[in-house]
């Protein structure tokens, strides 16, 4: 305990000395996030510096082993770091699919060589990743994917199309599900990593209804992928894919906490003169504060290895439905102000754009219906689910 207190004090002092003041302000929009990668344009020196110092300390991924670029912290220390960052309003130094999705999968399924090669770069924000899972005919039914990877002896030859690939046009590398066998649906999928600059890869952006974060159609035309970039065993990629999805859902479920975890919606909305809305906000706050307690408990369970493998689905479902509700209430409270799409005082239409963006929360990473199906089958063990 005493050690943890010392750790807290040292952490506080370090953050005080190293977190630039600009990085202690709330993000104004998604565009303020730092994604890193080869081509990333930092918006400020502070943003670049914050990523560098945190990356050097391994604190972009505090609980990964130090050997792979992590901070080597215990769960309790990680929690303290998070609390201390929150206390000064420090921004997340790096938003990264590498950290929240690929990293954990590599830690579990990667070869030693792969871990050494990719994890430190992920930790320092040097490669930006995208996720090549969904295809036009394989969304919720992900295992129906058709993108083909043929074994050419020393490499795989990849052909096919992905869709809804977030930031594919900005990513350096992709983690991609491909079909290596047609004999069995789930048993013929493999998990490949490759450079988006490889010959034969092309992307075409698609704009979201929010106007935010274009995602892409991604095409593969005779892409050569070296064999040492296969993660796990050939035809056994589904396990890697599912494990990664668990982490993706865990990340997305955090959205239920909204922008300020300690602040309630009532606080952020201020005076509300509509009795029905006031009641809805009160009930929302109950749900949100209860969910925050659940999140804390869930993270502790995960770190202690006590969480049921399907629990991320429950959290993803509950957290994203809650976040959608939050933004419905913000819109209701805002009235016509919340409808301003382009204007100075609406900060570029933050409210309506965020409201629209949240509608994807219950779709991306697997829809709410799919999450409920997983809970029904794997936790409640209902028949035929």
């Amino acid at each position, binding site marked *: 305990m005493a050690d943890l207190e010392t750790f807290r004090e040292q952490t506080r002092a370090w953050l005080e000395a190293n977190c630039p003041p600009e990085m202690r302000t709330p993000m104004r929009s998604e565009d303020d996030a730092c994604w890193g990668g080869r081509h990333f344009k930092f918006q400020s020196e502070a943003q670049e510096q914050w990523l560098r110092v945190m990356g050097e300390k391994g604190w972009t991924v505090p609980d990964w082993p130090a050997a792979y670029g992590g901070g080597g912290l215990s769960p309790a220390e990680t929690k303290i770091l998070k609390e201390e960052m929150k206390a000064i309003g420090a921004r997340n130094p790096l938003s990264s699919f590498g950290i929240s999705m690929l990293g954990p999968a590599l830690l579990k399924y990667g070869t030693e060589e792969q871990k050494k090669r990719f994890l430190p770069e992920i930790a320092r924000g040097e490669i930006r990743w995208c996720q090549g899972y969904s295809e036009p005919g394989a969304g919720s039914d992900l295992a129906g994917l058709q993108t083909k990877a043929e074994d050419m002896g020393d490499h795989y030859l990849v052909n096919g199309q992905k869709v809804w690939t977030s930031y594919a046009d900005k990513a350096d590398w992709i983690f991609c599900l491909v079909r290596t066998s047609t004999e069995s649906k789930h048993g013929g999928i493999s998990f490949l990593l490759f450079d988006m600059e490889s010959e034969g890869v092309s992307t075409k952006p698609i704009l979201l209804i929010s106007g935010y974060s274009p995602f892409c159609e991604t095409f593969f035309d005779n892409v050569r992928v070296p064999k040492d970039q296969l993660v796990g065993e050939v035809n056994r990629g589904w396990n890697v894919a599912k494990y990664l999805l668990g982490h993706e859902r865990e990340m997305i479920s955090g959205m239920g906490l909204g922008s300020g975890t300690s602040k309630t919606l*009532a*606080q952020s909305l201020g005076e509300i003169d509509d009795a029905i809305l006031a009641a809805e906000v009160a009930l929302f706050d109950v749900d949100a504060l*209860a969910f925050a307690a659940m999140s804390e408990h869930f993270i502790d369970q995960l770190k*202690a290895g006590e969480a049921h493998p399907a629990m991320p689905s429950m959290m993803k479902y509950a957290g994203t439905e809650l976040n959608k509700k939050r933004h419905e209430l913000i819109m209701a409270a805002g009235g016509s102000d919340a409808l301003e799409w382009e204007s100075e005082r609406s900060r570029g239409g933050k409210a309506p754009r965020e409201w629209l963006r949240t509608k994807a929360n219950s779709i991306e990473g697997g829809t709410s219906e799919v999450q409920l*199906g997983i809970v029904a089958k794997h936790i409640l063990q*209902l028949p*035929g689910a």
Partner: protein
Amino acid sequence: MTLLTDDQRQLADMTRSFLAEEGTIKKQLRHWRDIGCKDGFGHGLWKQMAELGLTGLAIPEEDGGLGLGATEAALVMEEVGRNLTPSPFLTTALVAVEALKGTEQGKRWFPGIIAGETVAAFAVDEGPHHRPRQIALEARRSGNGFALSGTKQFVVHGASADVILVAARTAGSAGEAEGLTLFAVPRDAAGLEIENVTLADSSKAARLTLSNVAVDADAVVGEVDHGFEPLRRAMRVGRTGAAAEMVGLASGASTMTLDYLKQRKQFGKLIGEFQVLQHRAAHLFGEIEIARAATWKAAELVDKGDDRAGLMTHVAKAKAGRVSALAVQEAVQMHGGIGMTDEHDIGLYMKREKVLDALFGDSNYHARMVRMLAA
């Protein structure tokens, strides 16, 4: 960390197996209901709980109890809820004990509670809705003590209690928190009329009429005019306990329902194969987990004496109330016609839920408090 310690897990396991054996609906709730027991619970079970140390769970060690906190209490309450076990545990061992901690009255009543011989009740509400600040029951100074006049209702186990903690107004007027005083009134006090009322769930909660009930000055629990503080502490514990009981109840009802979904066939299928039922069951599962986490968090903050304990207690009671209401509604619905029969246990969950939600403030009351504290 929000995970249980080994000791807490052991306590939960012990209580679970004990109540699953001795606290069952058949042995307790139905039995006492069907024979028309005036207490609505069994003194034998209360004694057994004493032998396990449970009745003294929250009593400080120096007074002979286990000195445990709201978290341990919540673990026990969850099992009570799962089995719908009627007992004075919540109002006597948790709420009254909390109010009596550190007082002379405590020294007087704790030994009996520890022994499983004493039952205590807690009288706050005077109307159909929980409004502690509205307390109007009057306590006038008279001689070297007080004379109490007024009415109370929804006094759980009031007719079975040896002592009733009565919240009364010694100063100020209805609506104010200041000017309240808590009195320990013995059941046989002259001028105290107790009407034993049977509620929808067949539990007992009395209506009290006090006509110049004379008590000595030493009947005061805590300080005169400053009774809101012990009242609030006691209600925090009571609300967390009731929330935990509702979580247990919701969990029990949903387990029973899931079992039914796995065995009942219609249209040539197990009804659990219908996706519409699966999704509702899965939604409910998540809600129960969330309500439990909120309840544990409230208990943890109460135990730590954290500033946020009040807010989180309101969150827990409101959330558990809404979730358990959903749980029993889904449970009866998914049982179809059989769920409407008295013979089947599931309806008993529905009735108990309604009572627990109302106890110490329903979910609307607590949501309103959350909003007040948050805004």
